[in-house]
């Protein structure tokens, strides 16, 4: 086992699955790059180099650069998934879902149900999300709650390189459409990642910290922040459980319920816009099913209800942070009163 970056973990998962199954193809804008240009072929591998090298390995027939035409190629990926291929389409920034959402939520998501169970749509849409890149309002959103909202779609949000490789291989082998979220601030994070292929199950949460006082649920990059907060709080004698649900659809609400029943306190950390996001969804489900177990009001650590600002001075205070999580945990420990 070697240390690998999140970027390498994603690349390795793609490469191993393409080698295993000739029906797996990759497509997207500049996923290889250099098409028709006089210089280097395979010049990009996506804007952040995540798919670099795949084209050299598998050729342009299986690593397809597309024109800028998301509605066209995401829809084509859905149609190809319906008819024998297992496409991994790269939507680049999730904000671009606006251009092609019909093909995702009215088409791919609904084939199986609308057609009376007859369809299989083994489609993966990989996409970058999240703030911290100073990329402003149209390149920084999370938006996974919008996909989670749609029955028929599965939504995976890996929190680390190890998680990314296992969840992506699972996504590619899955017969349903999966939207696979990669936080752009995680690509350079490294950890031990097995060389051989492995899968991580959808709908089974992972506990990254265990403690008796407070349950923290966090998604994607927020898991890293929650772990850091938990470690800091451990020094104050507050023991936190951190739950990484791994997928928001299916959502392992049972594990969250179990842990909240044990600690009686819940903090949910969600980087997505705060209205109708995962934090509100989980809070509602817990309030409905485990109200009697709660020893303090649930706290949500979420951004304000604004677009993502550009200026670093604003983006830094916009995003959830370790300090904000620590404050929320202290507040639930104090019985829900807001920490100063």
């Amino acid at each position, binding site marked *: 086992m070697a240390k690998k970056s999140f970027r390498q973990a994603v690349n390795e998962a793609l490469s191993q699955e393409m080698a295993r199954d000739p029906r797996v193809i990759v497509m997207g*804008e*500049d996923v290889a*790059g*250099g*098409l*028709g*240009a*006089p*210089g*280097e072929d395979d*010049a*990009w591998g996506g*804007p952040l180099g995540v798919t670099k090298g795949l084209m050299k390995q598998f050729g342009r027939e299986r690593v397809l*650069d597309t*024109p*800028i*035409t*998301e*509605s*066209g190629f995401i829809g084509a990926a859905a149609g190809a998934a319906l008819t024998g291929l297992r496409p991994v389409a790269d939507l680049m920034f999730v*904000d*671009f879902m*606006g*251009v092609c959402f019909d093909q995702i939520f009215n088409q791919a998501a609904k084939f199986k149900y609308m057609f009376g169970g007859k369809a299989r749509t083994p489609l993966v849409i990989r996409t970058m999300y999240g703030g911290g*890149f*100073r*990329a*402003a*309002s*149209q*390149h920084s959103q999370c938006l996974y709650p919008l996909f989670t909202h749609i029955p028929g779609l599965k939504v995976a949000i890996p929190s680390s390189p190890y998680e990314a490789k296992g969840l992506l291989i699972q996504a590619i082998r899955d017969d349903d459409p999966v939207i696979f979220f990669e936080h752009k601030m995680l690509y350079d994070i490294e950890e031990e990642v097995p060389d051989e292929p492995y899968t991580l199950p959808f709908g089974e949460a992972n506990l990254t910290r265990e403690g008796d006082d407070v349950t923290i649920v966090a998604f994607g990059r927020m898991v890293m922040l929650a772990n850091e907060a938990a470690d800091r709080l451990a020094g104050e004698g507050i023991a936190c459980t951190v739950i990484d649900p791994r997928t928001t659809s299916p959502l392992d609400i049972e594990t969250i319920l179990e842990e909240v029943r044990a600690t009686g306190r819940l903090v949910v950390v969600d980087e997505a816009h705060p209205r109708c996001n995962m934090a509100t969804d989980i809070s509602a489900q817990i309030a409905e099913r485990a109200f009697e177990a709660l020893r303090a009001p649930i706290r949500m650590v979420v951004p*304000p*209800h*604004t*677009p993502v*600002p*550009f*200026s*670093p*001075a*604003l983006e830094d*205070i*916009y995003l959830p942070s370790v300090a904000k999580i620590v404050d929320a945990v202290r507040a639930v420990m104090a019985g829900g009163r807001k920490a100063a």
Partner: protein
Amino acid sequence: MQLNRDELLRAYRDMCLIRQFEERVHAEFATGDIPGFVHLYAGEEASAVGVCMDLTERDTIASTHRGHGHCIAKGCDVDGMMAEIYGRKSGLCGGKGGSMHIADLDRGMLGANGIVGGGAPLACGAALSAKTLKTGAVAVAFGGDGASNQGTTAEAMNLASVWRLPVIFVLEDNGYAESTASAWSVGGDPVKRAEGFGIPATRVDGHDFFAVHEAAREAVARARAGEGPSFLHLKLARYFGHFEGDGMTYRAPDEVARLRAEKDCLKLFRRKVSEAGLLEGAALDAIEGEVATLIEGAVRRAKADAMPEPADLLTDVYVSY
């Protein structure tokens, strides 16, 4: 040539301003002081300035992620632009937008755009406003070769055609969308695509300010006369990477050097006006000096200006709520 001395000086000044602005942002970005994504327009100046030459403040433009040149050509304040790129409160958007979202509605600049293909439908809307309110204004949609393949672009062209909108589609074909060559990505001929929608279309050497201006002048006149949309396919080149940080390995090693030597729109402009005896070198040199001072001041001010305040985070989401 239709332009008088003042107009020629203004055109050269605006092109210089764009060039020096971009060269400077390129240098400043390399120091790490400028956050986020920055897409530079250097090399394409003849397009923005040639197209905007006959526009007034009432006319509108919808721009792209590569928008600095369009902003300057439409009269945006250079200090405000630079401050925006640095994320300062004094920026044209209060630091909330950054390079990809610079806008100045008072100048008819409807915004740079982070979504490729996002602008053309907006320009149709601006043209619809002008037509309905009978303001006599026209709208311009700038878009790249990459954007020309988006459904939104095709939909906007059809809409403009059937509604006979006073809109001009300007395809800035710089040969690449990110690392992908337009020679590969654009199927067929963009001029024929436009003609397919019933829109008068021409291909123009986008390095030649005078050719661009001539074509744009006709298109603007057509729009103002109520004769509907036009389409211009400008062949031009960008000098820097797709965004700052792009190593451009997909280009030929000497490609940019050759373009700068042989196709530079500023040099071509100088040569043309000198040969025709319209402007003398000293006047042009003086402009370059003035522009350098302006840029220097803009950078100095932007760096010194205050960041937005925490309370600014929560403002501007709604007009009222």
